[in-house]
């Protein structure tokens, strides 16, 4: 097991290295000069030139690339060209905001998605099955910005029960310690603030959960259908075991493995793919951070931001692979 983890971690190195190179080359291939963007339209030619020099943008690309790698090895993610702050310092609050939102979204997606999938498979071709799968199809193809704005309109403006945007009530801000606001309020024992923070999570969380929820539901259904037809399920039923236990205990255990893979992938996608949700709900997350950095040609932020998201993505997938072993003891790592 440890050997396996070690091996997987070693494999990470070339993956991440290759990624830094690709990202590095792509962002330099697109036109646009960071110095120009930073100094604004008023900037003089001379100012731009001197800024380029001081940012090291005059060096040939391979010098810049190796400087960057050298920094990475020593744990230096570079400084944001725009704010002049080290990326490693700056990035944490954004990352925490996105992780909190993604976790919330994936929890909703998993709970509803898996249950809907199971029930659909259990009562295949019932009205529930049809409704759930049509909803799932709509969910997959739903434009998030439209859904988000509609939800804001219904739940905030018309019903007045949920806030439209942001992470907290800015009229009564919380004291943040970890940047995970739910955790912070729980640590401080301020449960009314926990409720407020959770309220702020609902709209962006459900908007973000829609697509993974639909995918998980469809995946669970098809995987369950396959398992339900297998001999051991028939045996279990023949023994007179209650259908509920057959489904949730015996069948689910085997059906869940491909679903786990999907959940892992979706979780990773949520981290980087939350840009739209973060924009519409004014969520100060990492997707928006990187997206805005692209507009400013803030190379270190783009490079390091993507690197970190990719790293987490790979780690989640490793974690999922290890989960297989727990779910299915037949799977062994060596």
């Amino acid at each position, binding site marked *: 097991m440890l050997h396996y983890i070690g091996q997987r971690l070693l494999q990470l190195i070339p993956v991440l290295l290759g990624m830094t190179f690709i990202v590095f080359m792509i962002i330099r291939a*697109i036109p*646009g*000069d960071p110095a*120009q963007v*930073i*100094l*604004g339209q*008023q*900037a*003089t*030619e001379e*100012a731009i030139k*001197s*800024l380029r020099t*001081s*940012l090291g943008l005059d060096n040939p690309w391979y010098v810049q690339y190796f400087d960057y790698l050298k920094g990475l090895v020593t744990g230096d993610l570079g400084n944001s060209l725009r*704010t*002049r702050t080290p990326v490693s310092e*700056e990035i944490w*609050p*954004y990352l925490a905001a996105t992780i909190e939102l993604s976790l919330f979204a994936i929890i909703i997606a998993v*709970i*509803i998605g898996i*249950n809907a999938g199971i*029930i659909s498979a259990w*009562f295949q071709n*019932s009205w*529930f099955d049809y409704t759930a799968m049509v909803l799932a199809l709509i969910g997959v193809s739903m434009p998030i*910005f439209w859904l988000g*704005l509609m939800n*804001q309109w219904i739940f*905030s403006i018309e019903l*007045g*029960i*949920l*806030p*439209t*945007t*942001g992470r907290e*009530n*800015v*009229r*009564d*801000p919380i004291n*943040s310690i970890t940047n995970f606001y739910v955790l912070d309020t729980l640590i401080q024992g301020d449960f*009314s603030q926990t*409720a407020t923070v959770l*309220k702020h999570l*609902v709209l962006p969380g459900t908007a973000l959960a829609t697509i993974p929820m639909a995918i998980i539901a469809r995946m669970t259904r098809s995987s369950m259908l396959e398992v339900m037809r297998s001999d051991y399920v028939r045996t279990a039923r023949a023994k007179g075991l209650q*259908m509920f236990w057959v489904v949730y205990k015996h069948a689910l255990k085997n059906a869940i493995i491909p679903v786990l893979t999907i959940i892992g992938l979706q979780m990773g996608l949520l981290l980087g793919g939350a840009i739209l949700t973060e*924009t*519409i709900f*004014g969520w*100060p997350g990492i997707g*928006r*951070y990187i997206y*805005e950095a692209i*507009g*400013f*040609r803030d190379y270190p932020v783009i490079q390091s931001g993507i690197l970190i998201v990719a790293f987490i993505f790979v780690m989640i997938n490793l974690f999922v692979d290890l989960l297989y072993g727990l779910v299915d003891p037949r799977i062994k790592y060596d």
Partner: protein
Amino acid sequence: MGKKKIVSLAFLMLLLLSTALYGCSGGDESESGGESGGDSDSGEEKVLIFGRGGDSVSLDPIAVTDGESFKVTKNIFDTLINFGEQDTEIEPGLASEWTAAEDGLTYTFQLQEGVTFHDGTDFNAEAVVANFDRWSGGNSDQFPYYQSMFGGFGDAEEHVIESVEATGDYEVVIKLKRPQAPFLKNLAMSPFGIASPTAFEEAGDTFGDNPVGTGPFQFVEWNRNDTVTIEKFDDYWVEGEPKLDQVVFRAIPDNSARLNALLSGEIDLADGITPSDAGTIEGNENLQLFERPSMNVGYLGLTTTREPFDDPKVRQAMNHAIDRQALVDSFFEGRAEVAKNPMPPVISGYNDDIEGYEFDPEKAKELLAEAGLEDGFTMELWAMPVPRPYMPDGQKVAEAIQSNLADVGITAEIVSYEWATYLEKAAAGEADAFLLGWTGDNGDADNFLYVLLDQDNIGSNNYTYYENQALHDILIAAQTEVDEDARNELYMQAQEMIHKDAPWVPLAHSTPLLAGGTNVIDFKAHPTGSDKLASVDLE
């Protein structure tokens, strides 16, 4: 039968689960800042939440060039000279009065007494000198606006400021190397807010994370990409100000979402209202619309080095071919003025005698025929990919222009690039015709005509590559002309020349819109885009 029961049960469970998810957070309403959140009528703290499109880059005003930073720093720092409440006339600020020598080379400022910085440091002549020393000792990447406005740093020949000296506890003398007509206006710009010397010496490069000025509000907290919080400075030197206890600037990038937040009462004031939403706001009795006086221009630039736009006749034909009034009516919802000059009418020196090119497709065809293009031609029309106050929807404006041009036989193909790319390619002269615009910095004619159309600025802000030696001579003369009337006369001439050569099709001077709850009183939107909130109150 049993099967059906289970289905219903399962469905019920699912329903319960989802409502529970909503419900667990649906607790008591007072906390969400729901509908009543904005009202602070109970004698509690008056907190104003200002929703805007983006976050600040830094809160050290001299280090940045973006409007979102100045929106905040304008309230933390005071400048020696102030702009008028809703114009760019100069008024006393930290300098209570001043005198300029005849030759325009020496300015003597009397400073306001009894002013302290938020950290307790006294404001006096020494503090002013320390600020100028800090700025002039920097370089163009540290302090870009100092370079743009005062030409350079330290001993450099281009640096306009010769010396800044304290000649008394509350008297400062600034000597210039050569006259600079908009000198006082430049000093009123947000970047030149006076900072606490104690604080910037101590903080060094991180001053922008912990700004200290003499302004009506002091810095509290900054959650990047989310909120900047400032609170009332009790010892503010202007009697009775500020009226608010706290202001929170919130970044909500999406325009519709920002409007939703305003409608639900989570924010009190929203910047960047799109013209098409103005109707919604005017129809809502709890909201009011604020108009920011226009200090911008949106235009279609014609790159004068590219065929056929190297022929002034073709450029004039373009001016006749485009129906600006229709553009203003459709895409600015009428909240803009049709432009005939490259600068807006609020700026002194504006030439109102010029007759704009009227919309006349026949005339356009004649001019094209005179230029030997009776069969028309094919061109690229660049559409801005991002909305800006001076161009709310570049794509749609481009489509309308495209159809106007088709009527006179010109085939325009619309192209667009991501914003940074767009600017770089346009600056490199790669566009035939491109949509762009400009918002003024200091309300001076030089900041429009010289910056956007002088040959010195080809490759930077003169995107059309328009070159005219006679115009250049006039613009340079105007920069050092200290007599206001003589200077305005020069700018009037300049506008005539530009009108004749027609490097642009000036389109519109838009009125940027803001909206707020009816409880917001005395909010005055400033044409520069950064608003001082000292006299704003909530009822």
